[in-house]
């Protein structure tokens, strides 16, 4: 169970005039204690979400609620809707393979990812103010369930729509790359560069993650083969007897012991190297969602601008003819202009936020990857040293046995 107590990033947190200002505001969350609930097809895993905070609107200092995976999904969707332009932290995927769903390893991987997810939200200077977050962290289960079911249907974006948006964005990117310009499209070269970067980055990361996962498997396989080898050599030793037999037995025992070390390192590699890489991939995919939202907002703005222009022409015509529809038309025109300003404002907010977010994202990823590399190298060094020690300790014994 990884419980991270991280201090909030600078500039975050709410300042309340009522709370004593001696202690800086903090919001610290952990996701722990997965437990299987229910039976059969409807069985699921629930998690304990522990919040420790001194935020004024929160029930402090500590509150514990029970949440399940779909609750997390609800939270993510809410944030995605309401905080366009911000890179919403990624969630682990829904498991498609049935029998894997309740394996200890999978549950632990998921718990770790969910813990990361909530923590990143809690530490984000904007997202941590979200009311939906507060609901998620504090509400009782019935309220949670109601909120969850409310948001399905009307507001919940269907995956198919998102996919369509992704495809649009992707085709737009490729169009630009191929030189085919489409009308409703940002012509910001720096932004184009960013989009291209994101898409290519995903490919590179996915490949690295694939090999990282394979490496985990290889460790397990090597461990298994060392175990089998050890067993077989012990059996041969039993046949031989005498000094040679003893030598075989000792070697076999060492081999079996190293097999255990390998299995342990495989697990460490999975949780502390492969999963962070996977998380990185998910984060990049989440950014693609934000890119889609931006494209949407831009298109809306452009469409409205078009509509307003047309309306203006229309209005002027009506003014000339002094039609009785002029007043209505003026009214509509004003409304449209307001909407247009709103759309522009929305778009510009997204642009501004994205510019901030990309900096934050790169910093965060450098930290995350740096830690992952450290754990990877540490684990490999530890394993290699263990192997070297084990075999080295056998050498004097072999020497004495061979001469006896």
């Amino acid at each position, binding site marked *: 169970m990884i419980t*991270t107590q991280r201090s909030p990033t600078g500039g975050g947190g709410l300042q309340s005039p009522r709370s004593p200002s001696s202690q800086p505001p903090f919001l610290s969350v952990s996701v722990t204690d997965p437990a299987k609930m229910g039976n059969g097809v409807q069985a699921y895993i629930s998690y304990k979400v522990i919040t420790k905070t001194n935020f004024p609107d929160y029930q402090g200092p500590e509150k514990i609620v029970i949440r399940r995976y779909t609750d997390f999904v609800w939270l993510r969707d809410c944030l995605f809707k309401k905080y366009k332009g911000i890179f919403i932290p990624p969630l682990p995927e829904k498991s498609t393979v049935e029998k894997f769903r309740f394996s200890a390893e999978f549950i632990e991987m998921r718990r770790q990812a969910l813990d990361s997810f909530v923590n990143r939200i809690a530490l984000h200077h904007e997202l941590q103010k979200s009311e939906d977050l507060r609901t998620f962290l504090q509400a009782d289960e019935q309220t949670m369930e109601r909120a969850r079911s409310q948001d399905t249907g009307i507001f919940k974006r269907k995956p198919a729509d998102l996919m369509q948006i992704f495809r649009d964005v992707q085709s737009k990117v490729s169009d630009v790359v191929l030189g085919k310009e489409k009308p409703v499209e940002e012509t910001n070269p720096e932004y184009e*560069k*960013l989009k291209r*970067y994101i898409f*290519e*980055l995903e490919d*590179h*990361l996915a*490949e*690295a993650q694939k*090999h*990282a996962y*394979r*490496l985990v498997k*290889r*460790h397990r*396989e*090597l461990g*298994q*083969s*060392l175990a*089998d*080898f050890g067993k*077989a*050599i012990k*059996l*041969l030793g039993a*046949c031989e007897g005498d*000094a*040679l037999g003893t*030598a075989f037995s000792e*070697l076999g025992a060492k081999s079996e012991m190293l097999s255990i070390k390998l299995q342990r390192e495989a697990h460490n590699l999975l949780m502390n190297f492969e999963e962070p890489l996977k998380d990185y991939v998910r984060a990049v995919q989440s950014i693609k969602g934000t890119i889609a939202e931006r494209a949407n907002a831009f298109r809306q703005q452009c469409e409205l601008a078009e509509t307003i222009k047309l309306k203006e022409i229309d209005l002027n015509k009506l003014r000339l003819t002094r039609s009785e529809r002029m007043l209505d038309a003026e009214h509509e025109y004003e409304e449209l202009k307001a909407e247009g300003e709103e759309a522009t404002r929305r778009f510009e907010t997204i642009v501004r936020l994205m510019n901030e977010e*990309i*900096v934050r994202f*790169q910093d965060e990823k*450098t*930290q995350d*990857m*740096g*830690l992952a*590399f*450290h*754990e*990877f*190298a*540490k684990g*490999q*060094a530890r394993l*290699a*040293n263990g*192997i*070297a020690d084990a*075999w*080295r300790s*056998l*050498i004097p014994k*072999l*020497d004495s*046995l*061979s001469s006896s």
Partner: protein
Amino acid sequence: MGSENQGFEEAQLYASREEMESLVLDDDDNKKNSNDNNPLSRSNGGANGDGSQHHHPLSSSLPFAEIPTTDDDDPLLSSPSPHKSPNAFNSFLEPPSYADAVFRSFDGDHGKQINGHGVVSTSSPSSSSDYLKISVTDPQKDQDLKNSLVPGGNTFVTYLITTWTNLPEFNGTEFSVRRRFKDVVTLSDRLSDSYRGFFIPLRPDKNVVESQVMQKQEFVDQRRMALEKYLRKLAAHPVIRRSEELRVFLQVQGKLPLMKTTDVASRMLDGAVKLPKQLFGESVVSAAVDPNDVSQPAKGGRDLLRIFKELRQSVTNDWGETKPPVVEEDKEFLEKKKKLQDFELELTNLSQQAESLVKAQQDIGETLGQLGLAFVKLTKFESEEAMFNSQRVRAADMKNVATSAVKASRLYRELNAQTVRHLDKLHEYLGVMLAVNNAYADRSNALLTVQTLLSELSNLNSRIEKLEAAASKIFGGDRSRVRKIEELKETMRVTDEAKNCAVREYERIKENNKNELDRLDKERHDDFFGMLKGFVVNQAGYAEKMASVWETVANETSGYAKSC
């Protein structure tokens, strides 16, 4: 940092082995691994004659490098480095490049070296000063013009067999002959005949393939290696290396003057009848009987009747109510035989697990390499596209990890090549077990011959007694019966001589078995200890190197750990 691309290659999406080989690591001498055009190959899946090559299932995709070992200093055996004492098993010195990080196997007292060419040191503890070194080189096509029905049709390959020796029975210290595979078969057959009861190394397989394949370079080269291995094994055997057959094979120029076999069938063609006629049937002819022929195992042709008799005897042994006249009594022998059978079983199992281990080591090395390459590409990408400093920092970290992963991958490959060499002993001994089984078969066959002759004697005796009894009842004697009795008595005399011969042969084979078993025990002890130690030293050495690679990266990235 963003423009620091000189270390990286243009790489495709999926790393090939060549890519990994040629990757330039800027803090490493790019010494490629030794050329690997020597795949180790085994003819069949299971244990095969140790004369043939050993095939690892992986050799098609990734042949192992034959790491040359002659000119490397084994840090264990040779004089120590200036810093460390020979007995301190601390980290081995960093060689100039990882490709040179070779740990020669510790082969006990023998210091066996197997090189690309030339020499294997003989390891007879008795006389360490005499040597018999053999090499097989220079395959050439030749034609057999005499017997070919199709003009130019009967082509074959000859090999140059060069010997260096100081053994007295050879006239000379260095000489060469050309031999073809058929000659090797002949040599092997003659040794089997002459050295019954010995653990004779098995010759390479005949490999009946179409002539097209026969001429392919790969096949010819594999066969060359197999022949070399086989001849060296013969040279390593303390008794066989002194044999006349081997000497003739190695030294006598021109056509090999060894008879293909002592099969008496060919002698029949000459009209000479040498076997005891009485074994053949009823009629007595004053033939020049050579009882010594029973010292040869029964083979085809003329020996057919003898085979039938011996077969009948063996059936009697197994199913008859009476105990055969001579039984295998040597308890010690029977115990040893059982023990060796168990040994063979476990050895087979172990050699399979060894193959799996080698494969697993290869796989992990490969995956590490691919991971490294993926990170190299990612690093290059981040460096080129860097818009923020955090990206450059990340790219630097990633590069460290990438180069270390590629280094570790190479280390695994070298480790594996060495592991293969050490664990190869297991496969070798599977071949030895086959030779042992052959020697046991020699013994059983000889015993069967003795038993058969004893039964014959007992038969003849009872017939004589019957005739004598019948003859005595006739007044004045029975001339025909008396003559018959004389004949039978003569037959008995000859058969008795043959029996004595057979018994001598049996005893001789038993003695050979015993000596060979003792020799096997001793050699097995030395060989396996050598293998174990070599394996362990190898594993420890490479693990240490890998630990040092990763420790560097861990230290360089330790800043990230503290910040959490």
